[in-house]
């Protein structure tokens, strides 16, 4: 009888992991639509190409070496194909808390869930460098980012490894539930390094200090993308509970869903009001960024806050993201979709909010963790971008930028009938 329940628990938690992984995979569609909506139509094909290609590269690199670097084990996922039922049942029986003990699930489902997080981190980069970066330079960076940079910092955090043998973040009271820092801030740090070496889009900043608007081509698409991301986030945070198969875990999953949704709502409302007060108009793109900012802010700890706290945390993210976008523009750091603000600034915010509701986490631990992630990802990325810049160049020519990256990089337009009449 007990063994049958263990079998069921294994099946349920594995299934739960897979469904959440599939939801997170769908976030790739969200990023693709959001980014395609916020760039000009002449850069649509190229940004879509980047989004699909980076997802495929992330999956392959994580399979080749990323997962092994992050969690130990062998390259190419060797040995993942088999399961020893008797030994798994023994693991179940050996747990101290019985049915409520730690979760045990298929290793293959763990890989599937983890791999889509890598792709998410990489998707963040593509939006920030949109409309001017060379496709192949970007894809070359994706190989390094998803094969080495992300897995290394993932090892120091979720993997439990020590940072080059110096210190272990877990011992310092660091916690990042689903990856405000590990996934989102890491992606934004890599993006920031790229943008600094890449420069702004032509015409974005005038020589007299003016900041020019470059409106996105398709706001319905950007809105759809935001809703897709919002939905995928339930898998992102919900799956990070790692277990569904007992009452307290199932309740925790439900709270995470609830809080994730509440934070997105809070972020959206706060950003809408902030934009209205600052600009006098209800800026849809800020509203979209606000919802995402709320989601990023709650990701570091969606299980301990109350629904009200989650809404407020999201709202803080929603206000912060608007000011962050304006500040980056003043610094002439051109980010067409607001990725650095949404994922970087609000990712940091998410980490720093954790100690408020989770007593096991220390403020200093969060700070050291955030710093470790940022220094590693930003520094390593800067070196990689610089090498790419020297070897193959990372920016398309001025003429190609004027004509659009679609023709320059892909040789096709996204809307040929519309432009040809």
């Amino acid at each position: 009888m007990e063994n049958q329940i263990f079998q069921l628990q294994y099946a349920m938690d594995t299934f739960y992991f897979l469904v959440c992984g599939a939801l997170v995979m769908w976030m790739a569609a969200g990023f693709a639509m959001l980014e395609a909506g916020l760039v000009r139509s002449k850069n649509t094909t190229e940004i879509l190409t980047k989004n699909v290609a980076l997802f495929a590269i992330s999956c392959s690199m994580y399979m080749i070496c990323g997962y092994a670097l992050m969690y130990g084990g062998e390259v190419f996922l060797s040995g993942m194909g088999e399961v020893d039922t008797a030994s798994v049942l023994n693991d179940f029986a050996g747990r101290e808390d019985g049915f409520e003990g730690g979760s045990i699930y298929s290793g293959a489902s763990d890989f599937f869930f983890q791999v889509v997080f890598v792709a998410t981190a990489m998707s963040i980069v593509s939006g920030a460098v949109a409309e001017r970066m060379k496709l192949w330079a970007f894809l070359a960076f994706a190989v390094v980012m998803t094969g080495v940079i992300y897995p290394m910092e993932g090892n120091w955090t979720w993997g439990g490894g020590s940072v080059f043998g110096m210190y272990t973040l877990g011992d310092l009271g660091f916690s990042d539930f689903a990856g405000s820092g590990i996934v989102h801030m890491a992606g934004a740090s890599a993006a920031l390094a790229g943008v600094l070496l890449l420069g702004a889009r032509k015409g974005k900043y005038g020589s007299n200090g003016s900041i020019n608007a470059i409106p996105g081509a398709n706001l319905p698409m950007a809105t759809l993308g935001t809703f897709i991301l919002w939905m995928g986030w339930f898998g992102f945070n919900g799956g990070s509970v790692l277990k569904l198969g007992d009452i307290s875990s199932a309740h925790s999953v439900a709270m995470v869903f609830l809080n994730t949704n509440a934070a997105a709502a809070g972020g959206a409302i706060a950003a809408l009001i902030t934009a209205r007060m600052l600009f006098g108009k209800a800026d849809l793109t800020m509203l979209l960024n606000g919802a995402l900012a709320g989601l990023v802010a709650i990701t570091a700890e969606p299980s301990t806050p109350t629904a009200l706290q989650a809404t407020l945390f999201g709202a803080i993210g929603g206000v912060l993201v608007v000011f962050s976008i304006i500040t980056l523009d003043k610094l002439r750091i051109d980010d067409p979709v607001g990725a650095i603000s949404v994922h970087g600034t609000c990712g940091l915010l998410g980490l720093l909010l954790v100690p408020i509701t989770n007593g096991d986490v220390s403020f200093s631990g969060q700070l050291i963790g955030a710093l470790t992630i940022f220094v590693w990802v930003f520094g390593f990325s800067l070196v990689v971008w610089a090498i790419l810049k020297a070897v193959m160049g990372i920016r398309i020519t001025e003429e190609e930028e004027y004509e659009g990256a679609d023709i320059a990089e892909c040789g096709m337009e996204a809307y040929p009938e519309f432009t040809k009449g």
Partner: protein
Amino acid sequence: MKLITAVIKPFKLDDVREALSEIGVQGITVTEVKGFGRQKGHTELYRGAEYVVDFLPKVKLEAAVSDEIVDQVIECVAKTANTGKIGDGKIFVSDLEQVIRIRTGETGNSAL
């Protein structure tokens, strides 16, 4: 015969079309156009940055009419498209040398 070319505010198109059919205009050609006159452009806002839209969308309407009703048509368009605000548009009148109906080969007034 005259060719009446009018540039009007897009939202007035339906009213003008209806009014013209009532006074016996048999056909019009409509094009969506952009341009500027005394109204100039206007500023819009995107992510906190203002930008100027230099050319405003208008509708260009063309009608070939006989000399008898040309004054009536001008008056009709001028009256229907008028809002009293800047940007209502203009009417241009030019001589029309010849009109041919392609299907039948009719020419002149009978082709209108």
